């Protein structure tokens, strides 16, 4: 049953950062809203969009103390030890709970990213700022990550 929240609220999140830890935050918060019956749209733009390319999650660096990937390897080890879900699992959960992922086409042009370069299993639709603003004007919550 797709039971929505009592107040018919919705949320949008701009994912501008391509840092591993910030992508984790975006998907954790996105899943949190979905779990409360609040529909969520994630707008991936700039470095965030790069993370949606194939192997993008693997390449995403830590925002601090990445140390050429050593810091990230350590964080991933700790995540496993503390039963923290992987970024991949969080993204899959987000999709399976009905979350929407929108890719910024302006960034695609700017960075030379083609549709075929992006994860088709995650991206649902394409748009630019107009689409973000159109959806967000009726949303109750919006975040910029």
């Amino acid at each position, binding site marked *: *049953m*797709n*039971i*929505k*929240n*009592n107040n018919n609220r919705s949320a949008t999140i701009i994912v501008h950062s391509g840092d591993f830890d910030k992508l984790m935050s975006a998907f*954790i918060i996105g*899943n*949190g809203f*979905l*779990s*409360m*019956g*609040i529909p969520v749209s994630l707008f991936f733009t700039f470095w965030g969009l790069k993370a949606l390319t194939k192997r993008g999650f693997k390449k995403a660096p830590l925002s601090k103390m990445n140390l050429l990937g050593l810091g990230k390897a350590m964080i991933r080890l700790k995540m496993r030890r*503390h*039963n*923290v*879900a992987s970024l991949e699992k*969080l993204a899959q*959960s987000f999709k*399976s*709970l*009905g979350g929407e992922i929108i890719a910024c086409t302006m960034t695609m042009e700017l960075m030379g990213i083609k549709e075929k370069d992006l994860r088709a299993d995650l991206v649902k639709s394409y748009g630019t700022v107009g689409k973000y603003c159109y959806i967000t004007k009726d949303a109750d919550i919006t975040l910029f990550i």
Partner: protein
Amino acid sequence: MKVVDCLNENCPIPLIKTRQAIMDGKKSDLIQVIGDHPQSFDEIPMALESMGIKIIEKKQGKDVWRIKFKL
């Protein structure tokens, strides 16, 4: 009754699994969530409340908690 096993799971997996069970379920299904992540014991009821789902039972055991609700 459907049982959602959230043992050894960390944030936000218990919430995700609960929501998934609600989405997969149908009206008047009984669902019991079992877990040991302390915050989820408080936060799953918050999610249920925001969706207008009534809790039938909420029990904190020694190591494991249980939350039972009806769709």
